[in-house]
């Protein structure tokens, strides 16, 4: 541990990489791209999903008439909105899984590989 002051020693010792190595990983191109891509995905997915959930919430709270509107005999706007939120959850999970497999997992693997090679030297 490079920073061996009193504060650091109060924390629990965890096996793994030391502080210098952490800075190497953080400085690596793969890690920077991983963080940026993950942040971009999370902001987009969370933004869209919580906008949908927020709209649902506002309508549940203040839009009783809108929610009661019938689309067909047994289907109200309210029920359709509720089903859309559940489908929205599935969509986020599907998109996250796809992005992870295509983009995030390979970048994380690259960041890990660089560090493991460095340790091996």
């Amino acid at each position, binding site marked *: 541990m490079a920073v061996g002051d009193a504060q*650091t020693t109060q*924390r629990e010792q965890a096996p793994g990489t030391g502080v210098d190595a952490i800075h190497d990983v953080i400085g690596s191109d793969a890690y920077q791209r991983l963080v940026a891509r993950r942040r971009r995905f*999370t902001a987009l997915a969370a933004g869209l999903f919580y906008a949908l*959930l927020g709209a649902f919430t506002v309508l549940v709270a203040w839009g009783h008439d809108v929610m009661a509107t019938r689309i067909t005999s047994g289907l*109200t706007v309210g029920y359709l909105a509720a089903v859309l939120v559940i489908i929205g*959850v*599935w969509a986020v*999970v599907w998109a996250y899984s796809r992005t992870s497999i295509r983009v995030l997992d390979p970048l*994380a693997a690259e960041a890990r590989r660089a560090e493991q090679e460095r340790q091996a030297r």
Partner: protein
Amino acid sequence: MIAASTAHGLTLGVFAVILAITLAITWWAARRTRDASGFWAANRGISGAQNGLAIAGDYMSAAAFLGTVGLIYLFGFDGFITGVAACASFVAVLLLLAERMRNAGKYTMADVMAFRLNARPARTAAAIGTLFVVGFYLVAQMIAAGALFEALAGITFPVAVVVTGLFMLVYVLFGGMIATTWVQIVKAVLLMAGVVVLTVLVLHRVSWNPLEVMAQAPEHTDAGEAFLAPGQFFGTPQDSVSTIVAFALGTAGLPHILMRFFTVPDGRAARRSVGWAVAVIGCFYLLVSIIGFGARDVLGTAGEKAAGTGGNLAAPLLAQNLGGGAGTFGGDVLLATISAVAFATILAVVAGLVMAASGALAHDVYSNVIRRGDASERDELRVARIGAVSVAIVAMVLAILAGKGFNIQFLVSLTFAVAASANFPSLWLTLTWRRFNTTGAVVGVGVGLVSSLVLIVLSPTVWPGPDSEGSPVALVNPALISVPLGFLGCWVGTMLGRAEADDRYLELRVRADTGLGAEQA
């Protein structure tokens, strides 16, 4: 009493079969539980799909099944809202926590916080948050179990509570997380099968058109058309918003759900388990909504009294009715099956809760706070089992003292409100905010916990008596106020506290993002 004694006998028979299966699982699991990693994390050998089913089994409580069907039966659309919000909560779990928890933690939620913060105060705070959430939920489930057993199997309330507590202890003490996981998987499959059967029977009545189920509902209620719109259950807009906030964020602070992510081999499996869980839970709530509206069509206003407080018995009643009615063979068999599935549901949830409580007591408080990490694994596991027994005894005594008339909804809303207000802000900021420090975590957990407790006590459900007028706080669920207060507590504490070196934060980030240095399977 909705069941005749033949139905009681059948219910007990079906339930005995389910119990025998769970005991066989426990016996099998006991031989695979040798060390701490086996006891708390099932040797990290649960696959993503298995863990997803187990999360669904851990999450879909008796309240989710009997309670949601009952609320939709009594109040229509409003009853469906908590289900939608509960499903939505997994977006926060997936995007913010699942993989990161798996990569950064070992056995408990507190592991993640102790990694970068001053370990003893952070662990203590997280353990207190865990024990409050788990404790309230456990007592609520025990009371639900007792009341159900009494109504559906003719066993008295205290006996039912003790039986539930004993089986829960057998799973946890002998089979640890492996037994708990498989009991939850079996339960998830049984519950989904039960829900599918009920849905098929409901749809069969209306020539397989789900929309027809809802089209008919207004004809069978005094509320009329309003039954299909919001506003029947939630008195004010603030109540509905607050409840949605509590459910949508609460899951991300439920220790027994987060603990499940430590049972899989890596972050990828943690992510997959959320996928499986929301697939199952989403389908579950969609089917439950059809069952709830179907109960209205079938049982009508005449069934409201028999369905009991909160409509909790609407689902078993519906099963009996669709099977041919009380006293018929088909009616008795369906009633017995659905009742037995409801008991299995409770057993799986309480076992998960006791696992989380024993983790907080033994791994966090005893091993790392009291013994400062020098306790042997043997000691830690001994204390884990003592902790599980103590928690179970306290929960059984509290449930029996509170009695079956106690308002369970109050305990469940407290669970989600405390989880969302005390646990979630600190956990999330630990993983994402560079400046966050120990004081921030301690103050955040404290403010979130105290504010949700105080607001619930002052709310209309509790103060000055159940469902009475004149309570100082109008909100039925405190989350709308207490979640922002929890975050505010984290921020104020961080600003007032001493800045901490950020090397451990950076290491936590790298670990959480890449899985470098994560606990190996």
